[in-house]
């Protein structure tokens, strides 16, 4: 597969804070790539850097083979970007917002109007077209921003937490659109929503403190846990110190953590769980839950000192 986005050893510092450190990854044409990361991990910085809102200090970045430092204008004309904050022009109506941004990306007056109306219809805000942005709910503003990122039919779609602030129906609408575009466009989005990442991403990168901790397909990422499972025991009272001491003595029980009346831990061996269960039965156990490791567990492990 041909590369659509390539980042090589990108570094960026701002006011003595390292935002990105030796960051490298690639996104294939026609694929959906997700960047997962906690607040401040550098997700938005990566996306802003790709659309030229932030300049890198070191490294190379290309979109469709074009260097972002020297051919930024060309890149921006084939890229649609939706930021995390609402940045609609509050002096223009919704229709004018879409038309002006379409035209700024090189569309003719007629095409900008047709595309704007088309997206308004598809995303169900056609009745709001003559309203000002400040008259819309935040969710609708986000939908308009989403449409604005797509109005010029970009080859590369870059979205920063696209479904944040949207109601469930709008979320589904957004993902329906992205699902349809997925075959022809390169989609790069940043999110903190694990379910969306698991459902829609072809590849996932986990970003932590400005660097990629791990990336690959969901299956490959899960494989790296080597069959680790998560166990949760619920008690009527918070587990006692005595119980925790005994539990920690078990050799292959990983990251035991108490959250209120719940105890959560990881293990690769079911036998270890049975031993813990046997112990827990002496302490007013109310419920148990077991599941194989998912993206969320892997993320927590990678960004919080490791699962093991």
């Amino acid at each position, binding site marked *: 597969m041909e590369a659509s986005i390539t980042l090589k050893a990108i570094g960026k510092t*701002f006011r003595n804070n390292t935002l990105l450190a030796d960051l490298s990854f690639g996104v294939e044409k026609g694929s959906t790539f997700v960047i997962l990361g906690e607040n401040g991990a550098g997700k938005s910085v990566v996306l*802003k850097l790709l*659309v*030229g*809102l*932030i*300049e890198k200090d070191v490294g190379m970045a290309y979109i469709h083979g074009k260097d972002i430092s020297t051919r930024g*204008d*060309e890149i*921006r*004309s084939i*890229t649609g*970007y939706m*930021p995390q*904050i*609402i*940045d*609609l*022009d*509050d*002096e*223009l109506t919704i229709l*004018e917002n879409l038309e*002006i*941004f379409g*035209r*700024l*990306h*090189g569309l003719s007056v007629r095409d900008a109007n047709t595309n704007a109306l088309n997206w308004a219809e598809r995303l169900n805000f056609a009745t709001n077209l003559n309203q000002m942005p400040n008259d819309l709910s935040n969710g609708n503003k986000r939908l308009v921003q989403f449409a604005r990122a797509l109005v010029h039919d970009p080859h590369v779609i870059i979205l920063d937490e696209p479904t944040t602030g949207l109601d469930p129906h709008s979320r589904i609408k957004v993902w329906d659109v992205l699902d349809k575009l997925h075959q022809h466009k390169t989609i790069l989005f940043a999110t903190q929503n694990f379910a969306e990442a698991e459902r829609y991403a072809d590849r996932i990168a986990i970003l932590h403190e400005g660097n990629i901790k791990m990336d690959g397909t969901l299956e490959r990422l899960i494989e790296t846990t080597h069959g680790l499972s998560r166990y949760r025991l619920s008690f009527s009272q918070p587990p006692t110190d005595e119980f925790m001491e005994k539990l920690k003595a078990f050799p292959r029980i990983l990251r035991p953590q108490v959250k209120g009346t719940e105890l959560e831990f990881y293990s690769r061996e079911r036998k270890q769980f049975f031993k813990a269960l046997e112990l827990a039965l002496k302490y007013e156990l109310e419920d148990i839950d077991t599941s194989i490791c998912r993206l969320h567990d892997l993320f927590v492990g990678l960004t919080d000192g490791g699962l093991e």
Partner: protein
Amino acid sequence: MLAVLLYRDWLNIKKNGISLLVIFTMLPMLLHLFLSLPLSNIISVDIRYLNWAAPGIWVTASGLLAFCVAILRMKKIKHDSGQLDALLKTPLRNGEIIFSVIIVATLLGFFQALVSIGLTVLLNNEYLGFGQIILILLQIIPLINFYAILGTLLGIFIKDGIVLISVILLIFLILALSIGSFLPLEIFPTNYVEVVNKLPLTSIINSCQMIIQNGAVSYIGIFLTFLLNIFLVLLTLVVSYKTFRK
């Protein structure tokens, strides 16, 4: 792309057409009412004071309007609600954003000058020939442009509302009271007059006063203001390249 940005501003101007017309009319009328008329009872010059001060009204109203439009638009783009990022993610260049602000502010300043000339002619019962009006506009346009560029440059830096109001007030005081618009320079200390007379803006106001008196007009002010404007535009572009993309 510049044309699209100008169209965007046109859409906004259309929405605020009535407010702008009120400002275009009120600004010169208030200057006439609260500055020219009271001062006409105190200050005596070679010709009737109200006629002598008319160029002051044209220059103050149009310069101030151009400055306010530019500084407010640039402040909004740069500092309010992510407008700059929204524009910079399109294939626009910094220069196009800067020029759109300057052009719109200069054009609005130009219309303000036309309205001001029309109103002072009516209020003062004076006659200005077509040739004189053209000469006056030729003198005033570089000055309006100067204030539009200055507003754009300062708008990049000014975030705070209080600072913005203070700067606008300062510009008003400079335009109205310190360069011979409403107060003849003869009443100021000699050392100050020597410095102020060297400013191209003072020369422009003096030239406008000469035009209505059918006196000898100097064009050096236009030329120097034009050079100053080029320098300020270049400075604004450099500042934009340093500050727009972080």
